[in-house]
């Protein structure tokens, strides 16, 4: 039975969502085999769904699931002769680890048990995001094994057919197994090299949620929630890492504006036109509080800087009262720490707000040769906006047309069409 088969009732879903990532991480730690871990974790969940409604939920659900999964693994390994060596390891390791775990859990030190599980989860994070895996495989593995999405859900998240996603996951698992990518948390000296891959996976999931690259909807709130959940887990596991904190703060501070980003018909609403009373103040406060913890940091990384920018937007009552000079200063810093064409674009837009449209446009025109920006619809629509402010309407219309050629999702396309129609209408008057 796979988790997709069991995922029929709400109870199962609830158990599955809550326990899957934890259970799987521990099993992978023991078995060092994603496929096998997945299989026995699904079996254990299925058994829970059968027994718990009649027998009652055990005192230590996680320990119950682990024991059930382990018994199942031993059964399977006995039948598969090629796994004899693994079975021996499993017996020794699992007995030791599980005994410790059950003893500590029984003794009431749930915290100790959780810490061991935390280590397993962190190991799985670094394995799924190993740089030896293709970036799209890292995202897929993380959503599947840490967020606990089914293969169908991961496929839907990236708008690829289920078979394609299943193949991608199978290939990635084969590489982990056959190239022997270790299940381990990198040492402190390796963290600066390895952590960015983990952070970027979560960020990629979030940006896809923030503005879908294709498809009928502008935003994908389900996916945003998933990214925030992953960032929270990672922050819990690495509470002292500033960039992990920065990423979580950035996601919260950005997501807080979500309720006002579209109108009742799902059309995008520009920052300038958003009803700021609809921003989620609770989430803003949480993001700002996180950021304040990190403020004494002398060398902020890219996520922390972006979070600070998002906080300035969130705390302003209007576009006019936004601290644009401070935002420009933060973009200057970001450009030094993590230069990219998109950072340059955002900086130019902020300069346009701080110093007027002429200054912003001059910066954008300097960037026009960048091949990455030439193909990016937001570059052309930003240019169009500034040209419009300067009364250069035919040039603005031309820029909107360029943006329309490149845009991917329907609500944004419709928005750009309206902007263009608006200008053309004025132009003909």
């Amino acid at each position: 039975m796979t988790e997709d088969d069991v995922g029929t009732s709400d109870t199962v879903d609830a158990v599955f969502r809550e326990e899957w990532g934890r259970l799987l991480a521990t099993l992978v730690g023991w078995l060092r085999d994603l496929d096998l871990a997945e299989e026995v974790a699904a079996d254990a969940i299925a058994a829970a769904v059968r027994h718990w409604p009649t027998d009652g939920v055990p005192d230590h659900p996680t320990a119950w699931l682990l024991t059930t999964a382990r018994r199942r693994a031993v059964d399977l390994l006995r039948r598969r002769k090629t796994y004899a060596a693994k079975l021996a390891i499993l017996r020794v390791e699992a007995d030791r680890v599980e005994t410790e775990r059950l003893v500590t859990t029984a003794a009431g030190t749930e915290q100790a048990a959780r810490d061991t599980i935390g280590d397993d989860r962190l190991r799985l994070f670094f394995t799924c995001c190993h740089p030896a895996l293709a970036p799209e495989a890292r995202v897929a593995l993380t959503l599947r094994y840490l967020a606990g999405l089914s293969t169908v859900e991961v496929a839907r998240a990236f708008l690829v057919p289920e078979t394609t996603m299943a193949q991608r996951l199978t290939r990635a698992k084969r590489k982990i197994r056959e190239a022997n990518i270790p299940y381990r948390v990198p040492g402190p000296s390796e963290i600066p090299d390895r952590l960015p891959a983990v952070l970027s996976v979560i960020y990629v999931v979030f940006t896809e949620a923030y503005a879908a690259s294709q498809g009928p909807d502008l935003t994908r709130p389900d996916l945003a929630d998933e990214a925030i959940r992953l960032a929270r887990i990672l922050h819990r596991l690495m509470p002292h890492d500033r960039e992990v904190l920065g990423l979580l703060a950035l996601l919260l501070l950005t997501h807080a504006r979500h309720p006002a980003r579209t109108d009742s018909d799902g059309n995008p609403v520009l920052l300038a036109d958003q009803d700021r009373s609809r921003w989620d103040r609770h989430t803003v406060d949480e993001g700002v509080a996180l950021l304040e913890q990190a403020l004494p940091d002398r060398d902020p990384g890219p996520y922390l800087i972006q979070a600070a920018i998002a906080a300035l937007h969130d705390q302003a009552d209007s576009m006019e009262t936004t601290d644009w000079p401070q935002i420009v200063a933060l973009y200057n810093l970001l450009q030094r720490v993590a230069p990219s064409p998109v950072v340059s674009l955002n900086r130019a837009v902020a300069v346009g707000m701080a110093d007027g449209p002429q200054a912003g446009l001059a910066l954008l025109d300097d960037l026009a040769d960048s091949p990455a920006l030439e193909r990016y619809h937001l570059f052309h629509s930003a240019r169009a906006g500034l040209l419009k402010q300067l009364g250069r309407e035919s040039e603005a219309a031309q820029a909107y047309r360029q943006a329309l050629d490149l845009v991917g999702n329907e609500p944004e396309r419709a928005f750009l069409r309206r902007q263009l129609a608006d200008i053309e209408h004025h132009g003909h008057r």
Partner: protein
Amino acid sequence: MRYMLLLNGEEPTTTPSEAEMNAEMAEWGAYDTAVHEAGIFVSSEALQPSQTATTVRLKDQERIVTDGPFVETREVLGGFYVIDVPDLDTALDWAAKCPAAKNGSVEIRPVLVFDEPEQ
């Protein structure tokens, strides 16, 4: 677990000076010593330049022999190490230390181990 480090690089078009040659040899010597001292050495060979290579294929039972390797990039295989280390991360560390990683690239391939026949 065994990994083969495939050492790829551009072949020099001019003869290096004696000083350059000596510096390079010293670097390779140090790496080779380190691999041996770590107790992970399995085997290693350096290859003659790619223009000495010959490629053979069979097409419909017919032997087709061509001059040189099939190269799409300027980097060619110049030699290899087979090392025995616990996992990919350790293999990556050794590959990164290899002088070939600096001027070219090192491809890491796990060595396929066939299952032993069941008894």
